[in-house]
């Protein structure tokens, strides 16, 4: 039954601990994760905005650079065609001078110059290739130049077999239109775009409207496939705006594409970067955050684990204490009811016993008379009467003790000096101790404050403890230590013997009324239960510790009166001279 109870309690504490653990972990970790997720989400949004804004600015700047570059080149050619006449420019040596002037001013950006008539024939050429009298009537840029005032062509291989593009302006002189064209060095132009590098994977390139590369790219990008084609389609709509999209490329990586139109929408500057690269900082921050969350979670879990273990341990302890206390409360209640019952019985028994004793005494009186003096059983009669008297006395003793137990003794509260009281009792017991070969040692803290209790009751308790100890050591002798000191406004009296000790089975019953281990007729089994009742009434405690073969320690603790308590009311009353009773 007990084992089952224990198991039930252990199960209860186990589930209590599990619930506490789960609650602590969930309550602590959930907000942490939610807050972190919220912050990370917000952070991601603002970081994305920041990255986009940065890329936008970058692409815009380069778009302006490239546009300016093209416009400048166009303006240079336009300036030349405006300044010089067709005749002057048709002179190849003059044209060569002009080319040299341009090259000395801008570097090797201008590769060559050429003057082309309306029929597409190049009438003059200055440059490293032998392109004099070349026919351009079929060339795309030439077709366009005939309709528009100036043309910047796409990159093409042309007659020379090298990638290049043409800047051409159309002029009219004497009713005849002619075209001045210059070839722009692809390498110089390419550098403008290739220099745009961000992070590990960010690079830029230019596409024409057909989706053909106008610059060299670092990676093998198929311009006509995938995302690039979309830019071409949407390019017109984008115009001056910067368009940012995110697409997955052929190898499955997410890429960011930032597009801007160039050359009035003919070309597109495309900047491409892996999303993971663009958001590398964010990813690092997220990694750190996750590590912190994981470590924090581990910390919380560990803390909760140990904390709940300790708390549940405490609870188990308190439960145990409570159980003991409950047992004690039951014990006290039992004692109180037994006490009342005992008092009633004692009163009722007193009278019949008194009558019996007196009647026996009467027989004894009559036996004294002459006529009985010769009776052969006279001595037997007398013995029987003595026995009745003795047993009657024993009954009286028992009823007296029962009535003491029911707290009917002198319970006047007065100032009691514990030192005086103990010393008095020790001297009282000295004779008995000597007889039992017991040494009594006292260790009493000097100047102990006075207790406000019933002197006779306290005497009864201490004397009972001393007598019990002396009885216990009766056979072999020993040492009896009586000590007293103040602990936290409580006076503690300890009575310790080194007698045979109390078996564990008896310890629990030691304060029960009528429980005695003394031989029949020697003890009533009421002494300690009376002590228990008295000390409880004083608001104190009486505890016993005992080890078989080592001895027994009774510890009585009685609280001291409150500091400002007034003199007890009944101390002035019934101060009649104590009489021998």
């Amino acid at each position: 039954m007990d084992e089952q109870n224990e198991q039930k309690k252990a199960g209860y504490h186990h589930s209590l601990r599990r619930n506490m653990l789960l609650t602590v972990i969930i309550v602590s970790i959930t907000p942490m994760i939610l807050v972190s997720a919220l912050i990370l989400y917000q952070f991601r949004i603002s970081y994305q905005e920041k990255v986009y804004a940065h890329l936008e600015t970058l692409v815009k700047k380069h778009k302006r650079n490239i546009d300016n570059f093209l416009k400048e080149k166009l303006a240079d050619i336009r300036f030349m065609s405006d300044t010089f006449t067709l005749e002057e420019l048709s002179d190849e040596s003059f044209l060569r001078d002009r080319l040299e002037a341009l090259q000395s001013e801008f570097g090797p950006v201008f590769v060559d110059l050429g003057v082309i008539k309306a029929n597409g024939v190049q009438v003059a050429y200055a440059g490293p290739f032998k392109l004099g009298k070349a026919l351009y009537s079929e060339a795309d840029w030439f077709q366009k130049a005939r309709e528009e005032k100036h043309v910047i062509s796409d990159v093409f291989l042309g007659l020379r077999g090298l990638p290049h593009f043409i800047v051409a302006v159309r002029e009219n002189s004497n009713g005849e239109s002619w075209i001045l064209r210059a070839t722009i060095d692809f390498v110089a132009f390419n550098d403008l775009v290739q220099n745009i590098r961000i992070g590990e994977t960010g690079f830029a390139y230019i596409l024409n409207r057909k989706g053909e590369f106008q610059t060299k790219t670092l990676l093998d990008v198929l311009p006509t496939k995938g995302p690039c084609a979309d830019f071409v389609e949407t390019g017109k709509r984008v115009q001056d705006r910067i368009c940012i999209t995110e697409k997955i490329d052929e190898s499955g990586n997410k890429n960011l594409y930032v597009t801007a139109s160039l050359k009035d929408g003919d070309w597109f500057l495309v900047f491409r970067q892996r999303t993971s690269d663009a958001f590398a900082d964010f990813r690092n921050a997220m990694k750190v955050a996750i590590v912190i969350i994981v470590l924090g979670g581990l910390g919380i879990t560990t803390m909760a684990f140990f904390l709940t273990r300790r708390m549940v341990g405490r609870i188990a302890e308190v439960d145990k204490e409570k159980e003991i206390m409950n047992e004690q409360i039951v014990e006290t209640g039992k004692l109180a009811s037994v006490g009342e019952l005992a008092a009633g019985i004692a009163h009722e028994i007193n009278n019949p016993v008194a009558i019996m004793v007196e009647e026996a005494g009467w027989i004894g009186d009559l036996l004294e008379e002459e006529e009985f003096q010769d009776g052969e059983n006279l001595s037997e009669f007398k013995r029987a009467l003595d026995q009745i008297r003795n047993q009657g006395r024993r009954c009286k003793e028992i009823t007296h003790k029962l009535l003491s137990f029911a707290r009917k003794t002198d319970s006047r509260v007065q100032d009691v000096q514990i030192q005086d009281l103990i010393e008095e009792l020790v001297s009282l017991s000295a004779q008995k101790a000597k007889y039992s070969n017991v040494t009594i040692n006292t260790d009493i803290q000097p100047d102990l404050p006075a207790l406000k209790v019933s002197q006779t009751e306290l005497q009864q308790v201490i004397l009972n403890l001393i007598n019990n100890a002396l009885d216990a050591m009766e056979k072999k002798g020993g040492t009896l230590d009586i000590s007293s000191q103040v602990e936290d406004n409580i006076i503690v009296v300890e009575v310790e013997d080194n007698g045979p000790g109390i078996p564990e089975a008896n310890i629990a019953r030691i304060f029960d009324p009528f429980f005695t281990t003394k031989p029949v007729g020697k003890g009533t089994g009421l002494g300690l239960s009376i002590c228990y009742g008295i000390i409880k009434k004083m608001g104190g405690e009486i505890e016993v510790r005992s080890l078989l073969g080592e001895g027994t320690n009774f510890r009585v603790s009685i609280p001291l009166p409150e500091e400002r308590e007034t003199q007890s009311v009944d101390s002035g009353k019934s101060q009649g001279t104590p009489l021998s009773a």
Partner: protein
Amino acid sequence: MPGKQKVRNGNIKVLLIDDEVGFADILAKRLNKRNMDVTPVYTGTEAVQIIRKQDFDVAVLDLKMEDMDGIEVLKIFKKAYPEMAVIMLTGHGSEQAAKEGIEFGAFDYLTKPCELEELLAKIREAYRKKAHA
């Protein structure tokens, strides 16, 4: 009143008041056998009535009686016959009432059940004290 308390035949005249009839009777018999002149009565009322007709040297009064409180009887005794010594009998644990009785002029008290010799001695002591008074 002084002439009233005379010792007849050397016997002390004792009024024994106890509502426990068996106890009162046997105690009276035993005291009588020891040269006392004991009259047992069993109620407070009887006691109050009898002392109007008879003189007693000592009264042994049980404090706990059904018809009348022993202390009340004591008060009446002390008022009417202050010379009569009163020994109270009290149950164990009711010493408080006995001490109160002493304040009202009782000679002393004994705890019940008491030894005959004890009571005898107490009666003699009370009688001596009264005779010398």
